């Protein structure tokens, strides 16, 4: 077993006797990432149609399905339809504080049993029960922290009321977002990540999700739904959520 000190000493020893291969520097980082991130979001929200079109193209390329609704109230109807088409009658959903709206009444009207995620940590037994439930529920409903147009990727942060498994265990993942989530490029995502890390994070994980789970490990034949969801749907809400 070695210690931190040993490792560092050996590394420093190597560095001391080695010239650099060439002059090099890491990436320049934004001095005020939150400001830059806000500016990016604002600008993109203004020309959201362009970004959305690009997002849709890339999202569909990786097997995602995009739905476009006028208002957040129209979301439950889409979820209800998806559920019926798949013979499903229940859905796991992020807490309303994480979603930005409360889908429960609307989903109940669609004859769906809603397992809403708590935003306060329940006791161990309740947590076990919840895990059972999530593992056997066919649909998962989440929000989206950033929708990356360049690659058709949805970025979700974990935290209270927004557990990781909602977008992982159910066979169908449905994610809801509006124009404020749109970003164009990975470079901009870099800025976003810098910005998020200047303050306390809600949870320990950030997940980038680019379409349904897939593999080509058997004779390079593409199959979907290996461990993660087999289907990924995104619902774009034209009227910004919470407005």
């Amino acid at each position, binding site marked *: 077993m070695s210690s931190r000190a040993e490792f560092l000493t050996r590394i420093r020893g190597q560095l001391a006797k080695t010239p650099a291969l060439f002059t090099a520097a890491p990436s320049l980082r934004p001095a005020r990432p939150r400001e830059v991130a806000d500016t990016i979001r604002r600008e993109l929200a203004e020309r959201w149609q362009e970004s959305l079109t690009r997002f849709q193209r890339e999202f569909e390329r990786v097997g995602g399905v995009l739905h476009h609704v006028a208002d957040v109230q129209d979301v439950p109807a889409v979820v209800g339809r998806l559920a019926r088409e798949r013979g499903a009658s229940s859905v796991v959903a992020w807490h309303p504080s994480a979603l930005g709206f409360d889908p429960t009444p609307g989903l109940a009207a669609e004859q769906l049993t809603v397992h809403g995620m708590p935003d306060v940590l329940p006791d161990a037994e309740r947590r076990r029960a919840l895990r059972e439930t999530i593992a056997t529920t066919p649909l998962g409903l989440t929000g989206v922290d950033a929708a990356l147009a360049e690659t058709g990727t949805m970025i979700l942060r974990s935290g209270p009321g927004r*557990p990781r498994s909602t977008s992982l265990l159910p066979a169908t993942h449905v994610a809801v977002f509006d124009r404020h989530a749109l970003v164009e490029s990975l470079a901009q995502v870099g800025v976003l990540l810098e910005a998020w890390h200047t303050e306390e994070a809600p949870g320990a*994980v950030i997940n980038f999700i680019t379409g349904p789970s897939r593999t080509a490990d058997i004779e*390079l034949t593409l199959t979907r739904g290996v461990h993660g969801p087999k289907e990924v749907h995104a619902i774009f809400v034209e009227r910004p959520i919470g407005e």
Partner: protein
Amino acid sequence: MSEPELATPFRARAGEALHDGFLQQALTIATTKFIDLRREAFGEFPEGEALRDRARAIKEATLQRLDHYLEQLVDNVERLGGTVHFATTPEDARRIILDIAERTGARMAVKSKSMATEEIHLNDALEAAGVTPVETDLGEYIIQLAHERPSHIIAPAIHKTKGQVADLFSRELGRPDVPADPEVLTAIARAELREKFLQADMGITGANFAVADTGTVVLVTNEGNGRMVTTLPRVHVAVMGVEKVVPSMTDLAVFLAILAKSATGQKLSVYTTLVRGPRKPTELEGPDEFHLVLLDNGRIDQIGGTLREALSCLRCGACLNVCPVYRSIGGHAYGYTYPGPIGILLTAMLNGPGSVKDLAHASSLCGACADACPVRIDIPRMLIELRKEVDEKRIAPWTERMVFRAFAWLLGRPALFRLTAPIARLMQRPFARGGRITRLPLFFGEWTRTRDLPPVAARTFSERWDDLAREGRR
């Protein structure tokens, strides 16, 4: 690879692979597909070239201050409630992980694909200690059931037919008559492994990157097993080579832009998971404990060594796909954890120059690997350096060294060099037929077994020069 297999010389292993008809077919299809996908991805990505240069620079800049960035990483991981361990040897790493398993009462560990854990031969050690390791990446799951090692860095079961996988599942999972249908096979794996994910005590992963500035470990996967393994069990252990650290999130974005494109032609893999320590106290899910095992295993020595550039490797597999040698013989013939062009360098790094006395020559030095490498590692140059080391350390056979020295000696004596032509013309007479040589004795037979050779010319260019010079003066 077990020791008896390594006892077969490399050339013989390569020969066997060449005669394996299905392997040949599988290799051609798979590598060609990967090459096309990669070309397409970079074809529609004009910023790609500049980003490759950036990526290379970031890796070099990080190495130049590796101590600083590692310290930063360690501090951040610990600040967020994780524990960092330092493993100099594979034995150290195994001991660390077994201790964690014992202390936490782990009986079963689910693993996301990790070449680092292959490198330290972790699974055998876990089994021996009564902890069942379960590979969850479909390709790794397949080869685990088959008791084999991976044959490609990113597509470990590329050498298996769907028929072979179906038989394997039938046999090992007690499911009769599994059809050779990838959809069905995937569904079976999904069902079998979901149980394991939900019951496992420990999740073990590698790490594609670790961001020093934030203490984040980054996992790039397609199947979702990386997420499962870091969400459901109560302990998460990530094993990572020290060279994988990157300074900041801005740097990470550069690598994410080129990694998946280089590996599979995807813009991004399906899941990129940024894990920052154990779950927050207010989170519903996530491990209670997070352990980062930093692995040396020969890497630190290369910071000042000839293989320094190889420390930039992103483990994307692009060099394997374009290598004419890999494409002919596949991964197992190399005999070590990492195959292909970068694999030869990594093998030397982990096991010393003696381990590559044959492998260093398993290359025509065509340079396709360096071309394909997203961080522009000059693999051919380092292969030549390894050959030099093998010569200088007298690892190469003395007969070979003698031949090359004799050749060099001759090159410095032009008059004697000129004599080789008439001598060769004399000696080749019994073998030259119809303007070509079809058979030669001894060592030269290595060529003529499969190819003809042009005879030494009746008059060499040097012998004709005086006439040519005269011609020019007319």
